């Protein structure tokens, strides 16, 4: 249940951004998240409902863009789809792969409103 602490961080960044741009409200917040980030989108949405209360993002919409799990093989160089507990290269079966997508936990975009 660390979704609440993540929301604290999210609200900190969004509030700073809104102040920097002298925005009155935040219209939407877009996150990119992969399943290997260790964060559950539904739990994060629930935590966000609590965190945003009374803030500049009180009426903001939370948009989550799920990211696929993908690996690049260090042996054969192939890029392939993978799953959270099978990160082996689909082409040659090697375990020497690097994750190129799937553990993101990124604040990608914030839409600010300058009018009430």
């Amino acid at each position, binding site marked *: 249940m660390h979704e609440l602490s993540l929301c604290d961080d999210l609200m*900190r960044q969004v509030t700073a951004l809104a102040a920097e741009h002298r925005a009155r409200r935040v219209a939407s917040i877009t996150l990119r998240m992969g399943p290997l980030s260790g964060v559950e989108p539904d739990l994060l949405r629930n935590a966000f409902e609590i965190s945003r209360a009374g803030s500049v993002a009180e009426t903001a919409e939370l948009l989550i863009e799920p990211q696929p799990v993908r690996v690049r093989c260090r042996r054969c160089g192939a890029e392939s789809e993978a799953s959270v507990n099978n990160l082996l290269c689909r082409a040659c079966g090697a375990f020497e792969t690097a994750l190129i997508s799937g553990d993101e936990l*990124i604040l990608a975009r914030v839409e600010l409103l300058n009018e009430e």
Partner: protein
Amino acid sequence: MCDTCGCNITSGNRHLLLDMPKATTPVSVLSTLLAHNDKQAETNRARLDRQGILAVNLMSSPGSGKTALLEATIAQLKSRLRIAVIEGDLETENDAARIRAQGVVAHQITTGTACHLDAHLVEGALDQIDLGQIDLLFIENVGNLVCPASFDLGHHLNVTLLSVTEGDDKPAKYPVMFRAADLMLVTKSDLLPHLDDFSPQRAEQHLRALANPAPVLTLSSRKNQGMEVWLQWLQEQVVAHKSRVAQQETLKPRVQKEGRALHQAAPAVRFRPVKPVHDHVD
């Protein structure tokens, strides 16, 4: 017709109002949601590096033998290395008391309801320890195979324990945790003869399926089986870290090290300069 009471809105033109774009400013950010924690973690790591201290984060389920491992490790290494321990639990000082009984400094963090340690909690604990007097700092995280994996504490290595009384498929069930391991310890090996359903080889295969090349050691701290390889590994890591910091270099735990830099979508973890797409309506 006026703009005050809305009488200018008719069924014929209402759609124009609904379609009217709001005065919004989209801002691209691309920063990690853990920025605040990660910044503190870097500060902690720099503080440890200045003293040449290696910090090892121990993670596992509750009851897999983290504290027992520390007791046995300290008993055998305290004559050769100066060791301190930060203990994380929801409640009680029990674990810190067990470590202090071994004659080394232990600071207990009680997290209340929080299921993991974070970099700020560790910072507070570092304030309580005389860092000039130690070579090796263990951070025993809260027993939990989920959340601790997501938080960089400012440590250098993740050691993940899997006891033989658990399933050997734990790495497949908790991939985020086991992907982060720099070393996996299969603990309570003295119980293996009584358990026909745990195979250390299968546990290792599940770890490899997470593309994790970390070494796997099998040991029993209670019966002192397989301890020498673990103690050797630890001492090598301490020596390697001392020479690393002498070169102004440091080490990040596996996942953070491999990291987010590989992701095309997120080249930086810090706030990037932002440019509104169109001007503000002030």
